[in-house]
């Protein structure tokens, strides 16, 4: 009941924001609204008991994707050209489709209906068997890391592909030594000139990094895991870049290291799969990693989550730097 009330409330706001995003012609405003959209979405996920997803949506939607969108906006015109009226056809198509989908929803199970088919099959098995077979409390992590580890490997590769793509299209900043001088010559300022963000930022960065590690290694017990940790880790470094300048950030984690992180995480993940094969199990069957299959599962999940975290952090940072370096 509370869920529904919260839900209706948040979702209505969500719709309003979404429509505003589409109507807004200033892209910067649209991007900031997109941040609100993500937060609303995340809050809604949380209300719907999806803690891991809520964390991810917040880290990705409100954090990383805002940064990326702003990075792209910095390189392109910030305003949408006003469009002529008369997109009626699109509107009609969209309205009709909506009506069809809404019509079909009347056949859906109601929100929270315990008798819905999704709660009868497969899912109960996960909830029952996870403590026994994997031995960790967070069932989401168990499913993600072991039962559907193959999907997660795919997910890592998707991230890697995005990294490869951005590097391919925009290139990574190479030597950064000269750049700072040029930037100064151009009169570019970083937030380092502003005392309050700088001090607060410097104070926060260690905590954010620590928090990233917490999310990484606490993922078996609470919401979180490699992907969220990687995103938070990347956010911390991006924060560092924002207040100290990219050059500083790139001396902390060099471009070469970024590439190694991108590939290394994926290889670590895949390597686990290969090792399980060599030990006589199926691909990604962690049970063979230790004497006790349950221990093996836990080891496997820890290692692959680490792989996920490394790749995600590397890719997101590489993408950020690629965008940031392009405009200079």
């Amino acid at each position, binding site marked *: 009941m509370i869920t529904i009330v919260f839900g209706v409330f948040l979702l209505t706001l969500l719709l309003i924001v979404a429509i505003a995003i589409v109507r807004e012609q200033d892209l910067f405003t649209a991007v900031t609204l997109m941040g609100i959209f993500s937060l609303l979405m995340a809050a809604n996920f949380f209300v719907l008991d999806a803690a891991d997803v809520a964390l991810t949506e917040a880290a990705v939607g409100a954090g990383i994707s805002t940064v990326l969108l702003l990075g792209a906006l910095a390189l392109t015109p910030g305003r949408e050209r006003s469009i002529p009226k008369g997109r009626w056809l699109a509107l009609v198509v969209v309205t009709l489709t909506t009506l069809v989908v809404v019509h079909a929803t009347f056949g859906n199970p109601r929100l929270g209906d315990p008798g819905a088919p999704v709660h009868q099959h497969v899912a109960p098995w996960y909830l029952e068997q996870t403590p026994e077979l994997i031995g960790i409390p967070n069932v989401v992590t168990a499913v993600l890391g072991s039962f559907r580890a193959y999907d997660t490997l795919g997910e890592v590769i998707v991230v890697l592909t995005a990294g490869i793509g951005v590097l391919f299209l925009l290139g990574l900043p190479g030597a950064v030594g000269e750049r700072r001088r040029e930037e100064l010559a151009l009169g570019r300022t970083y937030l380092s000139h502003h005392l309050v963000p700088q001090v607060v930022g410097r104070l926060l960065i260690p905590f954010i990094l620590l928090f990233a590690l917490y999310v990484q290694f606490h993922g078996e017990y609470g919401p979180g895991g490699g992907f969220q940790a990687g995103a938070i880790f990347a956010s911390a470094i991006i924060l560092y870049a924002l207040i100290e300048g990219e050059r500083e950030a790139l001396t902390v984690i060099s471009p070469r290291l970024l590439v190694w992180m991108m590939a290394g995480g994926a290889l670590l993940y895949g390597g686990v799969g290969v090792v399980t094969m060599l030990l006589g199990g199926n*691909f*990604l*069957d962690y049970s063979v990693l230790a004497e006790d299959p349950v221990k093996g599962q836990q080891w496997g999940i820890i290692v692959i989550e680490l792989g996920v975290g490394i790749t995600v952090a590397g890719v997101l940072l590489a993408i950020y730097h690629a965008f940031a370096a392009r405009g200079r």
Partner: protein
Amino acid sequence: MSLATQLPALQVAVPLLTAPLLVLLRGPGLAWAAACAASVMAFVIAISLTASVMTTGAISYAMGGWPGPYGIVLEIDALGTLVLLLVTGASTAALLSGRASLGLDIDAGRQHLFYAAWLIVLAGLSGIAITGDAFNVFVFMEISSLATYILIAAGPDRRALTATFKYLIMGTIGATFYLIGVGLVYMMTGTLNFADMESRIADVSDQRPILVAAGFISVGLALKAAVFPLHLWLPGAYTYAPHVVTAFLAACSTKVAIYVLLRFDFFLFQDNLVGHTMQFAVFLVPLAILGILVGSAVAMVESNLKRLLAFSSVAQIGYILLGASFANEAGLTAAVAHMFNHALAKGALFLAVAAIAMRVNGLRLQDIAGIGRRMPLTTAALAVAGASLVGVPGTAGFVSKWLLLQAAFAQGALGIAAVVVVIASSLAAVFYVWRIVECAYFGNAQAPGDAAAVVTEAPLPMLLGLWLVVIANVYFGLAPELPVSLAESAAADLLRHVP
């Protein structure tokens, strides 16, 4: 556990894990060699999988040791191996022969990234072909799509960027539609495993969500498969991608989407939707026919070589769907066999185009005038592959066209209409292939001193790869046992799921 039992996992893992290694490599030569090695290995694995599927029947492999529907299970059947052969074969042929051509399009500093993306495409497409899990299909679809965008954006023309963007938008919409459909099916059945879905879907209490799911999945996959009228991304993407990439993608990428479409339709929707026994026939026949006609017609007037062939692909996709829409053994056999044979023909044609593009500026018909004298081997390959596309007897294209017509004849009045359409578009194919060949052999070459004067034969690896595919076209035209028997068992497999 022996190596043979691990082959299904290795099929995907080999290219998927070679790709990150390539990111680390410096130097285009090494990256190319590694990519080739991985691709050849994948091809060999695909061949051995095919052999074991043909002898012992379908193979399944539990990822992580978790049985379905709890874990992800790989299911390899005849149709899957056929698609696997296509994907790995096309990749191998294009990679082995395409190095020089790609070297012209992509600067050396970025080539290792390009080859990494190539392997990811290969892994993604193979992953789709062998998985038995609906959501896993989505993951691998996105893997291959994202990497495909990179490959296409590598095209030297700036229009490659806009074409890629268009493809990215439409491809993402397609994938998201698919995801919605899978979500709805999951909502009503509680499972993601194909086999499990199939056994549970008939008991679903309310069919409306399933019906909408069928709509979303069909439209989403049709977008990916470039089914008319959702083909708008295809001509641009094929035209402006690096030539070798076009050869690779044209041979297999849309077929993979059609493969998933067939699986969904015959495993889940056919006969399981109350009152919608034959949605395929009702919805797809007009689309297939329109696609065949429009694709052929545009190809007849198009003057850019790659664009012409791209529109011909739109028509050929129509053939495949037409065969499938008969929803019987003969029709499906024809459709599946045509997937294979069209891939051979189109792959060879685009490889030939890649070879020509290395030596000639521009790919309009007048640019290739008189090329037959300067590049006799390439042009001959182009002609033979063109014959296969037309369906001249003795080539692979003939076999599937025969099967398709044979299936259509057995369909009664509607079938006769289909026959007329297929024949008409074959004649159109004669026309547009002939325009190319005639221009290549008899067109007036540019004035001496122009670029054409120094045109020489394409480099040897390119020619070897090209002719290998061309010979495959002839071989499978005269001894079509492999594709036809695979197609027959694939058709039987699909129909087994329809009560």
